[in-house]
């Protein structure tokens, strides 16, 4: 499994790096990646692989292939290969196809990872990778605003759910004591956090599989190129949520009485609402998209029960749906490609100009509706029978009602795309189209053949489906084409008849009324707008651009945080002296006076002179403290600084501007005094709290033998901590370059560069 993941990574990188000269043929190289997973599956691989990474936090690359994983890998790989071949015809020569291929290969790898991950965190990682791949692929036409916002919408919805899911998974793992998925399902945890954790995980599954009320991102995602819609947004990625629910349901559905009503309720509502919306779309892809959401709801309701027969039926539906819906999307893409539009109000009698594609569409749509002898019929009968025996009449009736809608939108798709039949106010513009190339329809044809053959001989796929269901604890169920005349058959027939009526005589008034209902997408849009609005407000408060306010916040934090702790822990040192000697006392006093003078004086030069007095005073304090090197440095630097200040200040006005006494100044003063008090208290407290012996003894003894110098401070700077000094010198070099650039730029030109205020020479000239 790790090898397969590696192949995907290598192919994705190779396509990106080397694919440019291949043109659109790079898609064929991309097809190698999903093909590799099929080949690997055929070799009968070992079921578990593990690489320990961070065992302490339960983060290991644990992969595990069981029957359900096998089915999913077969779908991801099989449909993946077909989609790459299809895309090879779908795209003409166009820029950035290399990138498209890389994204799609990356997605295939991530999806493979999702279905073989046996560690919750690894599952989450691959899960989010598919979301990112989906984002990149939906927004592939990134010059179009619609594509960008649809991509962002899909990303925000699915990753929001993904984050909730991560929290839920971590909570589950903490209660279970393991991050292993099989371990979690083997011994489902109990406890107060399990129910909220499951709700969070379900939130992730519902957003990913576009369940109501998070369904709206999937129709939006139809702005992606059609191969992407066929692969990610019908056959594989949107099944990830179903995959996860199917894994969890057998273990948890029975332990929590809210589970089945919630999951099945959401599924059925999704099935009916989106099925209804599909019956009046005018874009072929949107009919399919809404229909996909509807079918996802159906499957969600089945696997959400967590009961053996329904699980078996749900798994069978995953297979059947992937096959027929991928074929339908591919046909929609072919129509778009050859006729130039997907709008059923403009399309006409395409059945004649592309008979093969039309035949595929009929077979796939019939399978979706559930006509015998197709795979869709087999699975739908199984599904209805399982609902009847395990969930009771209300759920069965609801799903049968959903099936009426399925029939109606399937007919709408076929009639609108391939016949002249008038359902809406049609204005047929495109009556003929190019016949698609043989390779273009090969994929859909193959899928249609699978639909038929697997329907007539369900035994062929029974092993795959029964194996998958067996991994979910559902033993002993098998697919069969004919179950006799029974209630499910009756329901199917009724649904088909009802669907035909609904399609033939659409209730326009109800459709129009329904179109006016508030829609989830509007909630999303206003949430995003509100978020931006809040962000704007927060930004304008937090990032207001005023340096004094920023500094004030920082200083106030330093005063309040450590200051409060100081007041609680403060104790005076035991031996407190006023000063070492009288010189120190006098110098300290002078430094204090000079500092206050610096802050108070209004003349620039006066402030600088006071500052120098402080500096020289501090040098004297250094001498008294026993630091001659410091004092020497301080003297030199102070002299240099004074010189610099004088050089610069003789350009500036003599007095500071705008330093009048105002309320704002008062608050600045108060905060400054508090800072000073905190610093002073800290000095006393720090000196009183010394516990360890100072390092100085060691430095004193090591200085001569190791550093070869008697002056310990010098040895520290040039030997023990020489890298610090090197860094310091580097800083000085950078500063010197920067200062030189600031001063020298613009010199020697007749006019210095200045900003739009044109202030040069107008305002300040007299102040010099």
């Amino acid at each position, binding site marked *: 499994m790790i090898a397969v993941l590696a192949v995907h990574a290598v192919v994705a990188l190779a396509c990106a790096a080397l694919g440019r000269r291949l043109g659109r043929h790079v898609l064929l190289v991309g097809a190698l990646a999903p093909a590799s997973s099929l080949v690997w599956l055929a070799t009968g691989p070992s079921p578990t692989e593990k690489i320990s990474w961070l065992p302490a936090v339960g983060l290991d690359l644990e992969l595990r292939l069981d029957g359900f994983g096998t089915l999913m890998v077969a779908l991801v790989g099989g449909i993946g290969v077909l989609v790459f071949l299809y895309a090879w015809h779908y795209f003409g020569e166009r820029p950035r196809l290399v990138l498209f291929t890389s994204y799609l290969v990356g997605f295939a790898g991530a999806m493979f990872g999702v279905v073989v991950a046996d560690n919750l965190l690894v599952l989450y990682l691959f899960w989010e990778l598919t979301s990112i791949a989906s984002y990149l692929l939906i927004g592939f036409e990134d010059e179009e*605003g*619609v594509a960008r916002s*649809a991509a962002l919408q899909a990303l925000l919805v699915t990753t929001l759910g993904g984050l909730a899911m991560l929290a839920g998974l971590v909570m589950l793992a903490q209660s279970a004591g393991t991050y292993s998925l099989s371990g979690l399902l083997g011994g489902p945890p109990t406890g107060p956090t399990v129910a909220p954790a499951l709700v969070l995980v379900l939130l992730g599954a519902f957003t990913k599989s576009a369940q109501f009320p998070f369904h709206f991102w999937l129709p*939006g995602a139809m702005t992606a190129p059609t191969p992407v819609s066929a692969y990610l947004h019908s056959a594989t990625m949107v099944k990830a949520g179903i995959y996860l629910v199917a894994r969890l349901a057998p273990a948890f559905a029975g332990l929590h009485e809210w589970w089945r009503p919630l999951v099945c309720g959401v599924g059925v509502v999704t099935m009916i609402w989106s099925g209804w919306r599909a019956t009046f779309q005018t874009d072929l892809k949107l009919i399919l998209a809404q229909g996909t959401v509807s079918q996802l709801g159906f499957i969600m309701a089945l696997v959400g029960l967590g009961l053996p027969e329904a699980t078996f039926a749900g798994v069978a539906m995953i297979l059947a749906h992937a096959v027929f819906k991928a074929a339908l999307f591919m046909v929609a893409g072919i129509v778009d490609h050859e006729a130039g539009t997907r709008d059923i109000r403009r399309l006409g009698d395409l059945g004649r100009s592309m008979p093969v594609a039309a035949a595929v569409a009929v077979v796939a749509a019939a399978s979706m509706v559930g006509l015998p002898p197709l795979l869709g019929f087999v699975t739908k009968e199984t599904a209805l029978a399982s609902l009847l025996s395990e969930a009771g009449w209300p759920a069965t009736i609801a799903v049968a009602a959903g099936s009426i809608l399925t029939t109606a939108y399937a007919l709408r798709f076929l009639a609108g795309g391939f016949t002249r039949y008038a359902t809406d106010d049609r204005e047929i513009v495109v009556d003929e189209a190019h016949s698609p190339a043989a390779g273009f329809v090969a994929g859909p044809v193959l899928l249609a053949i699978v639909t038929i053959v697997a329907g007539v001989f369900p035994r062929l796929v029974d092993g795959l489906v029964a194996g998958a269901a067996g991994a979910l604890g559902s033993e002993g169920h098998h697919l069969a084409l004919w179950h006799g005349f029974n209630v499910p058959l009756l329901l199917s027939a009724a649904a088909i008849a009802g669907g035909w009526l609904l399609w033939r005589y659409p209730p326009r008034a109800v459709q129009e009324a329904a179109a006016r209902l508030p829609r989830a997408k509007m909630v999303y*849009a206003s949430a*995003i*707008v509100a978020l931006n*609005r809040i962000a704007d407000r927060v930004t304008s408060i937090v*990032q*207001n*651009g005023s340096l004094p306010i920023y500094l004030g916040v920082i200083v106030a934090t330093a005063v309040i945080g450590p200051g409060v702790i100081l007041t609680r822990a403060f104790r005076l040192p035991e*031996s407190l002296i006023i000063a070492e000697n009288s010189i120190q006392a006098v110098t300290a*006093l002078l*430094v204090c006076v000079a*500092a206050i003078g610096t*802050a108070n004086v209004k003349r620039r030069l006066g*402030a600088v002179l006071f500052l120098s007095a*402080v500096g020289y005073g501090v040098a004297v304090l250094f001498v*008294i*403290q*026993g*630091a001659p*090197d*410091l004092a020497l440095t*301080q003297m030199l630097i102070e002299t240099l*600084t004074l010189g*610099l200040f004088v050089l*610069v*200040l003789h*350009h500036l006005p003599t007095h*500071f501007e*705008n*330093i009048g006494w105002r309320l704002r100044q008062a608050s*600045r003063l108060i*905060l*400054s005094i508090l800072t*000073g*008090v*905190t*610093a*002073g208290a*800290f*000095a006393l407290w720090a000196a009183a709290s010394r516990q360890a012996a100072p390092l*100085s003894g060691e*430095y004193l003894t090591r200085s001569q033998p190791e550093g070869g110098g008697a*002056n*310990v*401070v010098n040895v520290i*700077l040039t030997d023990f901590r020489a890298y610090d000094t090197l860094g*310091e010198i580097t*800083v*000085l070099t950078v*500063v*010197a370059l920067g*200062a030189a650039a*600031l*001063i020298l730029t613009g010199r020697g030109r007749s006019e210095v560069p200045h900003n739009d205020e044109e*202030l040069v020479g107008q*305002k*300040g000239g007299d102040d010099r």
Partner: protein
Amino acid sequence: MIVLALALTVAVLYAAGTYLLFQRNLSRIVIGLALLTHGANLLLLLAGGRAGRPPIVGAEGGPAADPVPQALALTAIVITFGSTAFLLALAYRSWLLTRSDEVEDDVEDVRIATMTALREREAEEEIVVDEEAS
């Protein structure tokens, strides 16, 4: 054992330095920064313990002062000189360009605050994906 006079000096230097740091004139800010670092250097020495003889091997007269805070403070003095020089160059340039050494509010941030309404309208247009509009 601690010297009250030095602690007091640290407090005054911090207070005066912070006060100047809050001002709008770039030259006052630079001066405030210098005061603040004087305070910080003194604080370092103070935390190192009492005065002593210079930390030189073989020197006479009682216990040596702690060399570690001295080394730290020495680095700090030089770095402070660097930043002072750079800030003064900035002040000079600011004066050259605008004839003012006042630190204005960030223009871009002010723009963000005032253009909130406009941004909201743009956001609405960008977000609503009406792919079903017919």
